Each structure stands twice: as C-alpha cells, then as structure tokens.
C-alpha cells in the first residue's frame, strides 16, 4: 500500500499531465521529426494571428487595470476601516468570482447592444438617437469582454491585496506614523510598497485568466482572440498552428508566473507572531454610509449581466423595449423537454459526479502522502498536484484532445471523438484537483499526528484509524472542497467546449453555447433558463460550502 499509492499517483500525473504537455511541445517544435520553429514563424508572419495576440493582450491589460482600480481601494477600505455590515459586504464582494462570466455574457449583450436596454432608456432622455445608436460593447463585443472579465476577476485581486495588507506588521505603519507621516503618505511610502509582492501575485493570476478565457469571447462571437483561434483549431489535430498557438500561450503564462514569483518572493514584512493588533478606523455615519453604498453599487454592477440572463429566461416578449413586456416560465419546462438540454443536464451531473469521485480519491491520497509520509520526489508531487491551477484550462484541454485523439493510441477509450465521458471526467478532475488537495491537506495539517498515533497505539489498524479518526476530523474540509470541485465541474467551459464533440454528449455549458448559435427565436431564452438553473445549483452549493468552511473559504481561492 505504502509503495502502491505514490506509484499510482505518479502514473496518473505521467499519463494525464506530463504526456499531453510533451505531445503539445512535440507538435509545436518539430516538423517532420526534426526540431523546427517554422510554425511560430508562420504565426508571427500572419497579420491575423498578430491581431489575435494584440486583442487578447489588450483585453488582459484593460481587464487587469480595471480590476486593480476597483480592488485596491476596496482592500484598503476593508483592512483599515470598521463600519456596520462590513462582514456581509465582504462576502458579497466575492460573489462575482463564482458567477460564470460565460453565462453573464448573454445577459450583458441584451442590455448593451445597439438596441439594448441602455440605449432604449437613454433614447427617452434624448441622449441617444435610435437611428444610429452607439455600440457600447464596441466592434464585436470587445469592451463587453473587458467589462465581464474585470467584473469577474476583481475579487481575486481584492483577496490577495487584502491578505497582503493584513499580513503587514502594524508596527511598521506605526513607526511611520510615530515619525510624523500621515494617512496617505503612510499608505504610499510603507503599506503599498510592502504589500506589492502580494498584489503582484494576484495581478498575474488575473492577467492570465483574462488572456486565456475562452467562454466570453465565444459568447460574443469575437473571433480575433487567441483562445477563440485555439478553439477553432482544436478539431484539426494535423494543423500545427494550433499547437504553436497553445505553446505560445503556455510560454506567456510561464513567463508571467516566473516574473510573479521573482517580484512576489520577498515576504519580509509579515506580522510577528502575537504582534500588535492592527489599528482600524471606525468610520463616522456619513463615510460608513458612502462606503456601504459604494460597495453595494459595485456588487449591483457586477451582477447586471447575470440579472439579464434571469430576465431573458422568463421573457416571452422582449423586443425594442427596456424590459420584457411578456413573461413566461415555459423555457424552464422546455429545458427538461428538449433532448439537447435535458441530456446536457444529465451528462453534466454524471461527468461532475464521476470527476468528483476521482478527485476525492486522488486528493485524499496526495494530501495524505504530502502530510504524513516521507518519500523521494515529494516536492515534485506537490508541484504536480498544484500545476493544474496555473495551467489555463484551454491549454490542458487542447493538449488532451490532440494527445488522446491520435489514431493508434493504446488508450483508445479516451478518444474524445467517441464517448467523451472518460476523458472529460479526467479533464475535469485534473483541473479541480488542486482544490481538493488543498482542502484535504489543510485538514490533515490541522489533525495532529498524535491523534492518529493514539489510535494506532490502542490497536487500530491503518484503515480503522483513517475511518474513525482522520476522516471524521477532516470531513468538513472534504465536503467543502467537494462542493467547490463539483460545482466548478458543472460549469467548466474550456474542457466542455473543446472535448465534447457530439451533441448527445454535450455538458450544460456546451449546450448553452450551441443553443446560442441557433437561429430559432426561443433558443436564447432556453439557453438562459439553462444558465439560470446552473447558477442556482452553483449558489446552493457555495452556500453550503461557506456554511461548512466558515472563514476558511477564502483560502481555497487564494493563489
């Protein structure tokens, strides 16, 4: 058992992480079996692909800047000030992180297109002429993508900036204040520079996420981005340009992570143990009111896209009016009546349950190995188990497709062109594995080894000790980790869109995507209804997880 476990885990990572990545590199760097940079040359010479890179970079830069502009003041506010409802507002701020922007894109379009709600409202005030209304989302939804990404990702920056500021030794600020520096000066000369490594780490994550997100550009049918092109090329495994695009993305990600590690390495200013309690300012009535209103306003803006989805899912008639004029619940019935959608719900549930089971087994095994066993290659296992968190979903999904759809593969049952269940389950599982490893790892760390030794000492065998002592003690962590893993799998975009090729195997997200592409007038409404159902499921799951985990929830999202 002790030998078997590390071996099994190693084998899993070798086949489902190392091999696909190797295939990816091989495809990109070899031409007729020889090393070649020809495909990269082709990409750089092609003005369209250059445009794609430029667009994706612009989307990432603007989303990150927007998110920073929102998150930094918020982090300062929540760190330094006390006001009523702070705790509640703090959790509300994290809401956008869990609302999938992929679904939100549908709603955003409804509000902001040329004949959308905003322009129709503005027309009444005379600010907009409907003969030539402005396109708020810009050519093909470019601004829409940026807005959605920023609204979705700012909580990550908020969390990391808040943590970075909270970790600072309050004495460092007090020293500056003691020497005569005041508010803004202390922030500019002490707090910000010292919190910068943490903020930078968050910035890297947000930039990469915005650069590599596939769902939102697809929902806007915005073709000229790197993710959209990778999506188009995935079904052409013989076309080496896809490989080269993915590898370029991967290189960019790696570069950013290295940079992030270098700049974010020095954590020299963290608080001493048992050090002084940070001083907070209690806000007066008016500032407190302003702060609360500001945060609520931000949350409201963040949920506008999803509000649009809810509206559309109930609207029987919504044409050239600010809001729907007729309402109906029929689209929810149709979700379950239509084969395409009913099947997709069933498929998603099946895939997610399977991938969760796999994650539970692997996550428990890995966390146990990392906390309780000594063996060679432990650091490597730690890295491998956390790597999927850093790998954009797009990269791994592409690598899976090209690796396992190769003719003559010894693992033919994994070919996604047949039944994609096995590969999708593994892809989902690999992608969310870090969450479960972290949850279980934290659990095992909290359980003192003495508690397990006490059991062994009284005659219990390894299994009895695990079942009666370790497992009950880490149960809350496991359940919370499982809920997250399950719900993220239910709403997975990259793997679902790229690996499910036949409509009877579509999971929910791919069903929504394909419905949005249909011409039938009610297809969008049904897609929205499906999206709302997915959101409800996610909300319920996360509520449960938060109840179980309490304050520790935030740890799972941090980098």
């Amino acid at each position, binding site marked *: 058992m002790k030998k078997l476990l590390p071996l099994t885990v190693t084998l899993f990572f070798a086949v489902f992480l190392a091999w696909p990545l190797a295939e990816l590199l091989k495809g990109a760097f070899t031409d007729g079996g020889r090393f070649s940079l020809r495909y990269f040359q082709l990409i750089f010479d092609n003005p369209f692909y250059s445009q794609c890179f430029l667009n994706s970079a612009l989307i990432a830069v603007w989303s990150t800047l927007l998110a920073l502009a929102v998150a930094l003041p918020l982090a300062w506010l929540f760190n330094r000030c006390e006001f009523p409802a702070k705790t509640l507002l703090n959790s509300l701020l994290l809401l956008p992180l869990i609302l999938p922007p992929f679904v939100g894109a549908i709603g955003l379009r409804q509000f902001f297109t040329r004949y959308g709600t905003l322009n129709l409202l503005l027309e009444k005030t005379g600010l907009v002429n409907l003969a030539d209304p402005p396109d708020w989302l810009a050519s093909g939804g470019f601004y829409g993508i940026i807005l959605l990404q920023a609204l979705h990702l700012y909580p990550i920056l908020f969390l990391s900036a808040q943590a970075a500021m909270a970790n600072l030794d309050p004495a460092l600020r007090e020293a500056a204040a003691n020497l005569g520096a005041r508010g803004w000066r202390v922030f500019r000369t002490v707090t910000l520079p010292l919190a910068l490594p943490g903020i930078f780490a968050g910035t890297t994550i947000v930039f990469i996420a915005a650069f590599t997100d596939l769902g939102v550009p697809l929902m806007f049918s915005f073709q000229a981005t790197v993710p959209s092109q990778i999506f188009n090329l995935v079904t052409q495994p013989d076309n080496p340009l896809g490989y080269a695009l993915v590898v370029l993305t991967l290189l960019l990600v790696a570069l950013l992570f290295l940079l992030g590690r270098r700049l974010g390495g020095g954590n020299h200013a963290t608080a001493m143990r048992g050090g002084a309690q940070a001083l907070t300012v209690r806000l007066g009535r008016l500032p407190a009111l302003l702060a609360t209103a500001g945060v609520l306003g931000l949350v409201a803006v963040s949920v506008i896209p999803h509000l649009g989805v809810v509206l559309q899912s109930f609207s029987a008639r919504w044409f050239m009016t600010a809001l729907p004029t007729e309402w109906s619940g029929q689209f929810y019935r149709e979700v379950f009546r239509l084969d395409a959608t009913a099947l997709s719900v069933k498929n998603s549930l099946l895939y997610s349950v399977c991938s969760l089971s796999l994650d539970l087994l692997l996550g428990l095994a890995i966390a146990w190995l990392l906390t309780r066993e000594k063996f060679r290659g432990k650091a490597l296992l730690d890295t491998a188990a956390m790597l999927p968190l850093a790998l954009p979903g797009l990269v791994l999904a592409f690598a899976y497709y090209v690796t396992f759809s190769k003719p003559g593969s010894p693992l033919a049952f994994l070919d996604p062109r047949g039944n994609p269940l096995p590969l999708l389950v593994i892809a989902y599982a690999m992608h969310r594995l870090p969450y479960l490893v972290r949850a279980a790892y934290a659990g095992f760390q909290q359980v003192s080894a003495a508690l397990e*030794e006490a059991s062994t000492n009284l005659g219990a*065998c390894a299994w009895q000790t695990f079942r009666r002592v370790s497992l009950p003690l880490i149960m809350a962590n496991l359940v919370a980790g499982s809920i997250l893993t399950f719900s993220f799998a239910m709403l997975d975009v990259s793997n679902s869109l790229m690996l499910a090729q036949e409509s009877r195997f579509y999971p929910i997200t791919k069903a929504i995507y394909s419905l949005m592409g249909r011409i039938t007038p009610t297809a969008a409404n049904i897609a929205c209804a499906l999206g709302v159902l997915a959101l409800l499921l996610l909300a319920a799951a996360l509520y449960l997880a938060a109840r179980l985990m309490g304050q520790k929830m935030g740890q799972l999202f941090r980098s």
Partner: protein
Amino acid sequence: MHIQIQNLTKSFGANRVLDDITLTVNSGELFFLLGPSGCGKTTLLRAIAGFAEPDAGDIRFGGKSIVSVPPRARNTALVFQNYAVWPHLTVFENVAYGLRVRKVADGELRRRVQAALRQVGMETYAGRKPATLSGGQLQRVALARAIVVEPDVLLFDEPLSNLDAKLRLEIRAEIKRLHGALKRTSIYVTHDQHEALTMADRIAVMRDGQIQQTGTPREIYECPANAFVASFIGELNLFPAAAPLAAALGVTVSDGQIGFRPEHVELTGSGGIPARVLDCAYLGAASELLLQTAAGEQLKARATVSAAVGAAVRFTVSGENILFFNH
C-alpha cells in the same frame, strides 16, 4: 510485563539520538526516563511504543522481541503530552475506542469504560465533547483511555508538562495512586526532576542519547554517578579537586572534581571557612545564600536563617557529604 532494552541505537541523520541503550524495567515498576530536552528520552519511549524504528538493538517484552511487531499489536497504551484526545468523539467514545477496536461486547465495554472513568474521577463527563473540558480533565480522559484496555505497558510522554502547577501536583498524585492500584509496568518520560524523585520506583537519567545512571531516586540523589547526574538532579556546588576550597574542606585528592549540595553547607559560629554573603534569596521555609570565599570561589548554601548581603559568615561541609567525580 518485564521489559529489556538491549543495545538500542537510532540516528536522525548525523544525530545519534539513542546511543547503545541497554536497560531493564521490572514487571509492575513505575520507571522514569529523565533528562534534558534532546537527550533521547522521548525517542526511546516512541521506540518502545513502535512509532520510532530503531536502527539496531532489541526491545523485549516478557522475553519476546517486539521490534518487528507493528505498534498496534504491542498492547502498550500511551498517554500523550498534548493529550491527543479525539475532538470529534465524546469522553465515553474516546475511552471506549480501544475496546471497540478489540471488539469487546457492548455490555462489558460499557462496564469497563464507566469503571475507568470512575477511576479518574470523570464518570459524570461521559457524554461531554472534549472541547468543553479543561486541560486537567482532558489528561484524565487520556489516562482512562489508556488504562481501560488493560495494556501490558503504560507509557507516559511528559503528561504533565502542559498543565499548570496546581493541576500538575493533582494529576501527579492521581497517576501515582493509579499505578499503586493497577501495578502495571509503566515507563514515564519527563524532564522534571521533582516529578521523577517523588513518583519513580527507579529512574534512568539520560544525556545525549546515553544512559548516565539507573537507580532508585535515593541512589541517584545521594550517590550520583557523575557531575551531570548530580547537577541535573538537585543543585550542586562543583569545584576542581585542586581548588583552594577543596583543600580548606580537607580534600586530599587533587584529581577530578568535588561537589556538595547547598543543603549540606553548614553555617558555623566560629571555625570553618570564612566567606561573604553576596546574595540572599528568601524561599519561605529556607533562604538560599550565595557565598564568596576569600579566594573568590562562589557557592550556594541553604540556611534556615537569612543573612544580610555583605555580612561575614563561616561555613563548613562535613566529609561524608562531599561527592567525588573522576571526570
């Protein structure tokens, strides 16, 4: 259960934590492993429980080697320093755990758990969760959990070090009473000399992975094998045998060291060695004086009277109370 440990050796990297340990624990004895932190006493205890695998040597329970027996089959019961009471189980279930593992029938299990809880004075807490108990109560639960399985060997790993002074005395008396009632072979690890002196049948004093001396508390205190043992257990004034003070005390050897305990320093009215009082600490029942001789040698003395700092006194140490150490 009679325990023999033969030439036991264990290293962590270059650090030899157990260096050729040989000792015998008699059946029914309360045996103490005493030493400063890092001396290897806890590692030795964990090796007996099976949680530390020795590199070489043998451990025998009742003549049978157990080094290849897994920890769970050794029938020892360990009382941990930090209690290791399972937080998710009630007091009753904590104590019942070992019996459930041993598949003891329900009626008997209930009877034995209640008897064990009564023995440690916790019978009214059976339904409580550990989070609602104090440190002293937790250690009582841990004690009950250990004795209820009727182990061949009871092991104590500094069980009192997380408790405050008053509770420490209370649980110390409890363990001694339990041992008197159960007469089970027990090995008790501590760095606290008072604990060892007041509770032990026999003590092994350890340092740097080696046993310095084994004996009854009286043997160890009165005839320490070397200067380390003498100064670790009780206080000791230690001087080279060639020092002027030694000569003044009538010591004729000039090799090695001499030592004597503060309570053996007698203040005399006249005669004896002249000294000045450098410091006087009031201890309640006695005072501890720091004295300095004319040659500048400093020593501690325990006196029933206090003396003013700077006062001139005279003292002597009777010959039978002077200890000689060769190295």
